[in-house]
């Protein structure tokens, strides 16, 4: 059995890896050249949907990724306004995927970038992500479906890209309207123009290559198709080699990694939630941005769910707190009680959504 690997996936993987390294070198937080969860969380902070002072910044990368996808899909005539596939369910799934990601402290893309930075906590996250994908695949094989979408008015397809552009213009023109971190991860960022341009290119490449962190493992498990997984692998290798070349790599360790905690059970469970939810959605947070850029209204609603999930994560203190040295005393970080409850609630919600969207005969047969 032969399975062709699309060279575009390899190119996009390499570009994402290099872009992550460059953005970090230009000022983004360590091991956070790209992180969809963190960046959406920062935008939620910038727009004051939450008021966690260290994580407030309007990340141009999110605007660039979505617009890059819009421009590329228009150029290739793939832009198509469609919607109607269980939008409210997708909103809830988006919110819980975000909560799981913020418990772990990173989306699947940042997980790979953290792995390439030598963060062993991220390998625990990877194990959880894989378990989550297996859970999702189990329900897909049982016939899980959020039903079909339909062609809708073109304006629906432009709603999220246009909203982001308007917000971005407002950020540039009237920054006083927004909140910006003075310390913490939100205060660390590459120059606006670099973030935007690099993300435009990456967004366009991800649109063409269909890059998806969850799709790689899902397709490998379900169809022995390693096309998308190859992109995942190339990002890891590129970031790892890049960090070694740049002198950032200090060996593999779980100790005091940048913006990461060492509470391994919750690193694992957070990413189980992300993997499972992302399979049900049909793609990882990065893929949802790209699809929203292509005119997919359901993915746009998912992104809005992610935004609200990020706000909840900080308003209700669900997100992980990073490991730190306080006066020379090591704190491994971790998550609080509300975060643990939210992850467990997330599993319950995902189980209900998984079961209630099975075909009738599968439900009767259990």
């Amino acid at each position, binding site marked *: *059995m*032969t*399975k*062709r690997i*699309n060279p575009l996936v390899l190119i996009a993987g390499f570009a994402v890896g290099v872009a992550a390294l460059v953005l970090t070198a230009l000022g983004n937080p360590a091991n956070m050249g790209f992180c969809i969860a963190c960046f959406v969380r920062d935008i939620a902070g910038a727009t004051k949907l939450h008021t966690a002072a260290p994580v407030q910044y309007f990340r141009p990368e999110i605007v660039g990724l979505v617009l890059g996808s819009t421009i590329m899909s228009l150029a*290739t005539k*793939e832009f*198509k306004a*469609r919607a*109607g*596939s269980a939008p409210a369910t997708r909103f809830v799934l988006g919110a819980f995927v975000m909560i799981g990601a913020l418990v772990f402290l990173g989306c699947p893309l940042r997980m790979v970038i953290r792995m390439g930075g030598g963060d062993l906590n991220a390998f625990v996250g990877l194990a959880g992500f894989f378990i989550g994908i297996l859970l999702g695949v189990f329900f*897909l*094989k049982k016939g899980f*479906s*959020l*039903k*079909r*979408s*339909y*062609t809708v008015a073109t304006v629906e397809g432009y709603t999220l890209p246009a909203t982001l552009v308007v917000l971005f213009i407002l950020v540039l023109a009237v920054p006083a309207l927004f909140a910006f971190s003075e310390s913490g991860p939100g205060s660390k960022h590459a120059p606006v123009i670099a973030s935007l341009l690099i993300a435009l290119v990456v967004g366009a490449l991800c649109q063409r290559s*269909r890059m998806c962190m969850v*799709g790689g493992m*899902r*397709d490998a498990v*379900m*169809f*022995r*198709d390693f*096309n998308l997984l190859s992109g995942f692998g190339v990002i890891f290798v590129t970031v790892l080699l890049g960090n070694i070349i740049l002198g950032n790599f200090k060996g593999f360790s779980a100790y005091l990694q940048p913006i990461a905690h060492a509470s391994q059970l919750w690193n694992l469970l957070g990413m189980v939630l992300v993997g499972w939810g992302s399979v049900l959605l*049909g*793609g990882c947070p990065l893929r949802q941005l790209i699809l929203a850029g292509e005119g997919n209204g*359901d993915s746009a609603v998912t992104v809005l769910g992610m935004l609200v999930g990020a706000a909840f994560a900080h308003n209700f203190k669900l997100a992980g707190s990073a490991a730190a040295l306080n006066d020379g005393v090591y704190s491994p970080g971790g998550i609080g009680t509300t975060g643990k409850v939210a992850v467990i609630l997330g599993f319950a919600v995902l189980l209900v959504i998984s079961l209630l969207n099975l075909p009738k005969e599968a439900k009767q047969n259990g």
Partner: protein
Amino acid sequence: MVDARGLSCPLPVVMVQKEVKANAPKELEVKVDSMVCVENVKRYAASQGYAVSVKDEGDEFTMMLTK
């Protein structure tokens, strides 16, 4: 015929896989409405030894899988 119009990844491939495993058809018509689905179904079909032709009908695509 597999009608996977409007369905997102990977459901069209799951539907084709189910049909191929159940009936091993010599010919199978598959309807999808995005280029991503065309690519994914094509890759799966090729791995199962099918030749694939694609007819672009504007808003949707009709794929013919033959063995």
